[in-house]
């Protein structure tokens, strides 16, 4: 499974990279960590005529964490960079937890945030985290930079709003209050496999003790990472019960609403009915864990 022939360029700046993409419209691909692109090239499903290696573009690296937790991740931030960064697990705990599920040790040493977002696999963790946390994606193109919300960035499976001559430069995650409640649960066949279903969930608690600003995002949706507005609305403004039966009832209400609004297709790995039910089960368990404070087993596999 050798790669088909291609030309190779390793620019030093974003400007140069954009110019290279523009020089071969539709025939060039960006190489970041290569953990998604190179396997597709090994199968010759992708055969770009020109590979533009971003590895030397220093301006795409770097992690900045503000005091309120607002975080800027350079597009070439590797998963291991996220995991090794001292402040990130405190500043963006959902992100940090999710990254622990990405593939395997060796892949986390090469795979990048920007690469994952551009690849846009709906079964991947980062697109879901970006949408759930309302990240802003900073994109550079021939006519300048633009910023777009993650929710608008993903158009379909493996499809984004990126033009052929555009490059993701940075992902900005909003501030994360220290008192926020959150849960990230993913279910896959084996550790590191793509999720059969996953949920990223958070909310804040207002001064009266009600849930506010509820965000429920899913992994494994057929089309693109999405938030479940119905499930969010059930939880929004909800009293956070102390009683275990009431807690369970709330979790079940949210999960049932999630089940209603979520659909999934059959494939040979799993039926659509199973995926739907699994997603609702994960929502229920995620909500329950935010109410009790008890951690649910984060990695649920064989």
């Amino acid at each position, binding site marked *: *499974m*050798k*790669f*088909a*022939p*291609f*030309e*190779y360029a*390793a620019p030093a700046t974003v400007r140069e990279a954009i110019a290279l993409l523009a020089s071969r419209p539709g025939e060039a691909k960006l*190489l970041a960590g*290569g*953990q998604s692109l*190179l*396997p597709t090239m*090994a*199968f010759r499903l992708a055969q770009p005529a020109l*590979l533009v*290696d971003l*590895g030397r573009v220093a301006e795409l690296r770097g992690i900045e964490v503000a005091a309120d937790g607002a975080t800027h991740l350079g597009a070439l931030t590797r998963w*291991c960079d996220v995991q090794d960064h001292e402040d990130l697990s405190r500043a963006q705990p959902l992100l940090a937890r999710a990254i622990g599920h990405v*593939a*395997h*040790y*060796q*892949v986390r*040493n*090469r795979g990048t945030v920007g690469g994952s977002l551009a690849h846009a696999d709906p079964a991947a963790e980062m697109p879901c985290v970006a949408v759930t946390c309302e990240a802003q994606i900073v994109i550079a193109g021939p006519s300048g930079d633009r910023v777009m919300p993650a929710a608008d960035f993903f158009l379909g499976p493996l499809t984004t709003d990126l033009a052929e001559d555009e490059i993701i430069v940075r992902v900005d995650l909003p501030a994360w209050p220290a008192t926020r409640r959150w849960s990230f649960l993913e279910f896959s066949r*084996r*550790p*590191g496999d793509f999720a059969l279903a996953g949920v990223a969930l958070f909310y804040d608690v207002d001064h009266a003790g009600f849930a506010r600003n509820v965000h429920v995002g899913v992994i494994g949706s057929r089309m693109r990472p999405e938030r479940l507005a119905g499930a969010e609305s059930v939880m929004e403004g909800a009293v956070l019960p102390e009683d275990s039966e009431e807690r369970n009832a709330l979790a079940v209400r949210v999960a049932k609403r999630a089940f209603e609004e979520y659909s999934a297709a059959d494939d040979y790995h799993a039926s659509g009915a199973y995926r739907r039910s699994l997603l609702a089960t994960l929502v229920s368990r995620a909500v329950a864990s935010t109410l009790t404070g008890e951690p649910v087993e984060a990695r649920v596999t064989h």
Partner: protein
Amino acid sequence: MAIDVPVRESLADCLRHGLGQTGTHIGCEHGVCGACTVIVGGDAVRSCLMLAVQAEGTKVITVEGLSNGGKLSPLQTSFRKHHALQCGFCTPGILTTAHALLTQEPYASRERILDVISGNLCRCTGYVNIIDAIVDAQPSYVGAGAS
């Protein structure tokens, strides 16, 4: 070490055929099995998912670089002692992965080791002996400033 490589050549193929270091093995060529794992700049990576050109200017350690002039390292000795290899094909990738891990995390828990090694496939051993071997080699990484 300097070598000219075709741009489409993977790091794995460059190591094996360009440089004649055949200890690194190719098991799938699509980034799943881990047999091709080498250490680039201190990080364990799948060499089938890197172009050789991307390794320019970096320090690459392969399984051949783990021993001391042909003498088995404590990690390698532990593998032999624990019968942590059978056909030996996945072994170099597991050795480099374990070496990178223990160099950075000499006190890694058994669970952490299991989690990391879950990125390397073995069809012969059933893994139990591999994990035992890595755990048994940990003392040699503690305080040793191993590189």
